């Protein structure tokens, strides 16, 4: 590694030169920041300014630069110098745009700018240029778990892009549920008739594809490793085979909700009450001819009961809607009408849900004479040779009944997602504590696992809700919490076949992307491309396990000696481990306890008689920091007494920063993170929640220090809160002025 040579570049464009004493800032960079080179420029982001920096890097061997100009979010492409460590002192959005104009504010504005220059210099000196995860691995094969429609689609689409695939299917043949269908709902216009499933053709392509190998009647005994180097034990009839892969798509699909749980709807009580899967079997047997019941009687009347055991608010059945069942019932009603238009087919629904072009399919059914009745079914019972369906007719507003030869219950999809980690982890804790009962439970539960991950945090992917492995992010539907493992199809979310094929294709792309990035030692979403990675000084580690437990992505295991074992390719670089570590042995090259700690300590702290409080803001770089920038852009004026530092995630905030700040005389600390709780917005899932928990304990520290509890305050801030952050700051400054300056000043 070349010797460190530092440089600071101070821009005087965008009014910076008029509002600030740039020469004084240069002096600060030189004298206090100890920058070897300090240059001013009137237009730093233009070609000439950028060239000046480039020349210094090339000719002067500059390795560490501080750019004192606009926010790190602005002119990012212009200030792209991949071979050096860079810090940005935010003088434009963070100072001259957000702080009151006018001469009377010149002094505090200049002090703020001076501190940001000090902080930028202090930060960059503690940074090293990230060089990429050295433990990266290059395996680019993909494992697809599940050989149904979704799994086969993922496999084929990835194979067609040039990747080698291993499919593991637990049944003796490919196809999954889709293979049991007589026909499927149309994917393309004219959206009028049930279509051949295309399953045989798809299975044929998969089986004969040179890049795809298939294990049938097989399950996964163990999965270990990380993106680029997963090792998977495939258990089949012939024993265990080890497959090395780089990424995983979990397309393990669903089972249907057990019809026997619906006795009031005749489920399990009458042979003439079947579910949609049973209906497909009858249609396959009929093969286009008149459809007959199990007892051989030709069906002349059929009622489809929608939402059977679904959309249930009582907590007994499935609370969600499975999305496909309205279209499926419409399709199945067509099976009857197409074979014999005289069959009475009634679809009984509360809300008919055929979105998009499904409307045309619905119209087609109406044209075929399918009857749609808005009604809520109360009971289905055997009656005579068939069934009686009692229901509330919601249009006529009356209780009534209908007789039919056959009743089809549209039951929902239940995901095959494996072990629910929320149930698993307490059992593991109890088992580790010696409970024999818990040990047995653990064994039983492990049998239901799909992936059998040997991860510290449990054998399957965390589930979001109702047992589905979905992402909680609207903008990022594939962001499950195990890096390099993507859920696809109805295991991720209830869905129809068309959506499952789209989903499977998207999941395949994400798996490809992870293996490509892992092979370059780069992070996956949301810090995609980040070359930094967590570095741990094990000699200082006390084996407290906080990092292994708190990592939102299960990236950290424990070795035999109970030391944390980082799997860098599983890491998303949020820094939650760094925030958790009580002995501060975890860091990233360009983001560490020191890079932030040094900034905090670098400022020029006024004495307690100055009446100039100093307030530290630790702001999430994804939402709160942009909100602060936009407060500047929109001129929501706020106090010049604050000093804001962007953090990767609130989860990365180590409480030492807060106590250090208070010890060195800051009068208050504000943290601004994303919403946590059920509708969390934290991009790292658990970061803001963990930070909230850690901060709830800070009061004890304050007490020990003899400080008021108001000296630390945390807020949830959304990216749109530009006006609100200014208010929060101003209110807090007023509060601090009310309680008075910190007594800690001058002790350092």
């Amino acid at each position, binding site marked *: 590694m070349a010797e460190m040579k530092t440089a600071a570049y101070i821009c005087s464009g965008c009014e910076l030169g008029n509002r600030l004493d740039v020469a004084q800032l240069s002096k600060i960079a030189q004298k206090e920041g100890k920058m070897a080179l300090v240059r001013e420029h009137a237009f730093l982001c233009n070609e000439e300014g950028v060239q000046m920096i480039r020349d210094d890097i090339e000719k002067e061997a500059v390795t560490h630069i501080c750019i004192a100009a606009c926010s790190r979010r602005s002119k990012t492409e212009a200030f792209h110098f991949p071979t050096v460590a860079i810090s940005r002192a935010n003088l434009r959005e963070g100072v001259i745009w957000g702080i009151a104009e006018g001469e009377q504010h010149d002094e505090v504005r200049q002090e703020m700018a001076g501190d940001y220059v000090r902080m930028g210099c202090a930060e960059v000196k503690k940074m090293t240029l990230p060089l990429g995860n050295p433990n990266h691995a290059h395996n680019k094969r993909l494992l697809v778990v599940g050989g149904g429609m979704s799994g086969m689609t993922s496999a084929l689409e990835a194979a067609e892009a040039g990747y080698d695939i291993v499919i593991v299917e637990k049944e003796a043949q490919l196809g999954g549920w889709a293979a049991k269908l007589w026909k499927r709902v149309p994917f393309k216009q004219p959206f009028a008739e049930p279509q051949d499933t295309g399953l045989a053709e798809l299975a044929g392509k998969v089986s004969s594809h040179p890049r795809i190998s298939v294990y049938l009647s097989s399950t996964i005994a163990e999965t270990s490793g990380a993106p680029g180097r997963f090792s998977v034990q495939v258990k089949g009839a012939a024993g265990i085979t080890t497959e090395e892969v780089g990424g995983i798509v979990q397309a393990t699909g669903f089972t249907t909700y057990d019809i026997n749980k619906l006795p009031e709807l005749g489920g399990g009580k009458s042979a003439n009450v079947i579910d949609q899967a049973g209906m497909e079997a009858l249609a396959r047997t009929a093969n286009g001819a008149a459809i007959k019941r199990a007892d051989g009687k030709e069906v002349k009347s059929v009622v489809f009961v929608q939402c059977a055991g679904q959309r249930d608010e009582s907590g007994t059945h499935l609370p969600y809607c499975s999305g496909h069942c309205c279209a499926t019932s419409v399709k199945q009603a067509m099976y009857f009408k197409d074979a014999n238009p005289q069959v009475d087919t009634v679809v009984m629904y509360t809300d008919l849900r055929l979105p998009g072009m499904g409307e045309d399919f619905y119209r087609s059914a109406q044209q075929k004479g399918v009857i749609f009745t808005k009604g809520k079914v109360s009971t289905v019972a055997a009656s005579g040779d068939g069934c009686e369906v009692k229901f509330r007719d919601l249009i006529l507003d009356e209780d009534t009944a209908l007789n039919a030869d056959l009743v089809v219950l549209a039951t929902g999809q239940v995901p095959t997602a494996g072990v629910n980690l929320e149930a698993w982890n307490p059992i593991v804790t109890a088992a580790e504590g010696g409970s024999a009962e818990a040990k047995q439970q653990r064994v039983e539960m492990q049998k239901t696992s799909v992936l059998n991950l040997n991860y510290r945090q449990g054998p399957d992917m965390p589930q979001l809700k109702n047992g589905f492995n979905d992402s909680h992010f*609207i903008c990022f539907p594939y962001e499950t919490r195990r890096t390099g493992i993507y859920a696809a199809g109805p295991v991720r979310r209830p869905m129809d076949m068309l959506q499952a094929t789209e989903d499977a294709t998207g999941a395949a792309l994400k798996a490809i992307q992870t293996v490509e990035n892992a092979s370059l030692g780069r992070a996956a*979403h949301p810090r995609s491309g980040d070359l930094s990675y967590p570095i741990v000084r094990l000699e200082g580690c006390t084996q407290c396990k906080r990092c292994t437990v708190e990592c939102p992505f299960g990236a950290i295991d424990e070795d035999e000696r109970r030391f944390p074992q980082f799997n860098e390719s599983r890491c998303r670089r949020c820094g939650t481990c760094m925030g958790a570590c009580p002995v501060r042995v975890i860091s990233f090259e360009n983001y560490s306890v020191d890079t932030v700690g040094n900034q905090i300590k670098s400022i020029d702290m006024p004495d307690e008689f100055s009446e100039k409080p100093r307030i530290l803001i630790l702001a999430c770089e994804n939402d709160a920091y942009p909100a602060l920038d936009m407060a500047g852009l929109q001129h929501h004026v706020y106090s010049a007494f604050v000093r804001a530092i962007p953090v990767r995630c609130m989860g990365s905030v180590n409480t030492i920063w807060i106590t250090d700040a208070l010890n060195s005389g800051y009068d208050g600390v504000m943290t601004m993170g994303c919403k946590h709780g059920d509708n969390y917005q934290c*991009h790292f899932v658990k970061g803001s929640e963990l930070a909230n928990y850690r901060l709830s304990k800070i009061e004890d520290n304050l007490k020990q220090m003899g400080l008021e509890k108001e000296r630390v305050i945390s807020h949830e801030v959304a990216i749109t809160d530009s006006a609100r952050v200014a208010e929060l700051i101003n209110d807090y400054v007023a509060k601090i002025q009310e309680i008075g300056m910190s007594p800690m000043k001058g002790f350092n």
Partner: protein
Amino acid sequence: MNASIATNQTILVVGGGISGMTSALEAAECGKQVILAERNTSLGGRTSLLYRYFPKMCHPTCGLEINLRRLKANRNLRVMTQTEVTSVTGKRGDYTVTLKISPRYVNQNCTGCGECAKVVEAEIDNPYEYGLSKTKAAYLPHAMAYPQRYVLDASIVGAADGEKAKAACKYNAIELDMKTETVELKVGAVIWATGWKPYDAAKIQPYGYDRFDNVITSLEFERLADPHGPTGGKLLRPSDGKEAKNIAFIQCAGSRDENHLRHCSRICCMASLKQTQYVREVYGDEGKSTIYYIDIRSIDRLEDFYQKVQQDSAVKFVKSKVANIKLHEETNDLILHGVDTEGYHRYAAQHDLVVLAVGMEPESNGIALPADMITDSSGFIEGSKDGGQFSAGAASSPLDVNRSVQSATAASLRAIQVVHKTSATEGAR
């Protein structure tokens, strides 16, 4: 053509909304070369004009920030704004595309300092507020605009304001003689992520969108609810600026109707359910929302949100296709006429604001697509016959954001297959 700019290994993504950005980023993060062409002055598309997303009630700009950061960090991706695709010729793996780039009159020197806007006097309808407010004719499209660069409206070019703007710029960023440019590029695959537009509500004659000030679209309502919008987040009705506290939401405004849009637009039920919560956010129990609907389509786990809203005592559901709307002259309120089909009751209900949950029409209905393209009966794009051009997001089907992103991710892989195959063939040669 300069191979370093684009080759048949390059993927062109048309449209820089959430779907196009996703397609472009997902491909670029797999190491592919991508050009992202956006017709407007900034990326972000229609979602950047929404106040909140259902069902989390989070802000679209939050995801936009992440996507912009991904984009700024990725050297494989080149963004071209104010750029339209005028032709695509050639075949799968070997297309020549013609791009028309309209002048911004501001070059890359722009620092976003805003001095030009300070001196320009002329105002234009704010294109990012559906014309609900004005903006200076030299403007930054919105706070999260990317590129973060001002735009000069063509109306002031050649006028004194244009010269003033130029004089105020210290960075030679304003070029009043900038002309429309046409460039030709080679690309291997094209992803159409052209998104959607709201159905023209004026065509639904009985609802009087063109006659009654207080009948607005669901998209305009998003702007009213947004604290960064024209009313600062107050739900002020257009006729008299009065606070609207008794609001009707009419579902299927244009959708599920063979005279208008034959498809169901999928998102509108959830959008209206979400918007009832905007009313609650502003007024608490005092703000009343009534949803007039045919079926509530809160599919899969979105059902939770419907159940939550059903428990909200300030929200009423009426199963009815509203027949017509009449103006109550004295109050500027609106009287909705129809039949509540649950029990067949006729009603004449008075509301102070009506929000039409307008359907999604493919934006591509207004642009000339390559002849090879297959579209469905509503104009949604299936893809090209030769299998080298794909659709993503709401260009392909009426989709919500989550499904659009899913579709856009899938489209990326399809495009990658094309460029991989092209390179494999070349390698074999």
